[in-house]
């Protein structure tokens, strides 16, 4: 199949950048979207041009590195799928496809389609640690956890931190990401001890990094390759409210 690509090209972080049109010819429908870009890049290299820079790592939908807004939708619009797992058979011969980077103040573009997502790392860091006792391996079932809680926790833990939620949100809000990270630890007894300080610190870092606010549009949930539910955002709101009211974090710091 033959396609026309309109790709965001930007030399470096300070360059203004612009959309540039490329031809992608002889694309095999079984290729992934990133393989299609590899083909285009090989062509560019042969012609002595700068290849299109884009992020990828695992290419099997588990690392969260790939980050493309394809035709106006983060990861291209196939439910529960990362851009690397999106295949060209979902497009038609002759299509014109626009490809843009994640757009958010907290995700500045470094080059072409590559953004700096270290703001997510800083949110994770601010979440702090989980207390785990050293010593012998604990007995199985010494710490009872209901199947429901563990399932819900694992649902939240599926988040691969790709940032599609931010990219899709009209407010560039990171609430779905933060809610997944806060929830998966808050749901388990091991993570419960530091739950209050964790949620307070992560929300503060999220705000400081310049992400927008949640207006409950549901776009994040719809594009999330791991289908993290909006219910976790309600849980984050609940956890934050509890932490503010109980205020244990501060009482601890004050030594009370």
């Amino acid at each position, binding site marked *: 199949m033959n396609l026309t690509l*309109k790709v965001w090209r930007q030399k470096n972080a300070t360059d203004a950048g612009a959309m540039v049109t490329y031809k992608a010819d002889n694309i095999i429908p079984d290729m992934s979207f990133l393989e299609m870009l590899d083909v285009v890049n090989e062509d560019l290299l042969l012609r002595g041009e700068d290849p299109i820079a884009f992020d990828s790592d695992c290419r099997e939908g588990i690392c969260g590195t790939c980050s493309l807004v394809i035709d106006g939708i983060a990861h291209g619009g196939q439910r529960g799928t990362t851009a690397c797992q999106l295949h060209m058979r979902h497009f038609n011969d002759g299509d014109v496809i626009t490809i843009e980077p994640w757009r958010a103040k907290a995700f500045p573009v470094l080059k072409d389609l590559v953004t700096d997502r270290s703001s997510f790392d800083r949110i994770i860091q601010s979440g702090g640690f989980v207390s785990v006792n050293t010593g012998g391996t604990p007995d199985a079932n010494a710490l009872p956890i209901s199947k429901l809680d563990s399932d819900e926790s694992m649902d939240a833990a599926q988040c691969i931190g790709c940032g599609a939620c931010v990219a899709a949100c009209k407010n560039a809000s990171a609430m779905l990401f933060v809610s997944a990270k806060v929830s998966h630890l808050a749901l388990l007894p091991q993570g419960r001890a530091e739950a209050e300080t964790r949620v307070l610190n992560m929300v503060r870092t999220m705000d400081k990094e310049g992400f927008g606010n949640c207006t409950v549009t549901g776009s994040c949930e719809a594009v999330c390759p791991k289908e993290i539910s909006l219910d976790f955002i309600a849980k984050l709101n609940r956890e934050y409210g509890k932490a503010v009211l109980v205020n244990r974090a501060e009482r601890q710091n004050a030594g009370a």
Partner: protein
Amino acid sequence: MILTRIFHSSLGKKYIMAITGGAMFLFVVAHLLGNLQIFLGPEAINRYGHFLQSNMEIVWPARIGLLIMIGLHIWSAISLAAENKAARPIAYVNTKTVAASYASRTMMMSGLIIFAFILYHLLHYTVQAPVVNLKHVDFRTLHDPEHRHDVYNMMIIGFSHPAVCAIYLIGMALLCLHLSHGVNSMFQSLGWRKKTYGECLSKAARVIAALIFVGYASIPIAVITRFLVQK
């Protein structure tokens, strides 16, 4: 410190948004139930109007309370919206709306129009400025045989001009749009939404919003179609 965590955080400002919105929602419901008494005739609604007017202990705390609610609601909306705008300095060239409802994307627009509507509504029936009722009637001079303020005939005259009727219908349609998203989001922002009843809540919000529209719109429509006439 608790106040900083509420007034200076994104989540806290959403709590304010939700709580003030919730309070105003309750007022909207109560106000509707009060107004629907017009269908019971002059006696019922004039007595109700007289009851409110003669009890300053009810009217003024309610007015001041609502003023604070609306002030905080608008303050948090503007503050959050400014942050949202700043969060995406460079727009997408091509962007498709995924999942987000029309109501959810236009809360600011519907909110501002509702605010303008409220100002008109206050001038119309609270301040009772004769210029805005387009009938050139001074509502303050209307009294029923029992010397109470004649709320019944004031409403009939007030809605009998088609332009005024249209303003109310538009105002209520936008309120309906605003609430169809707002009532649901309020629970989400306060963390009171759970998987078990989440879907039900979203649907209920839309049904309630529609009922509020039907309730409020029924009065000007009844007047303009002469179902309700001056007595």
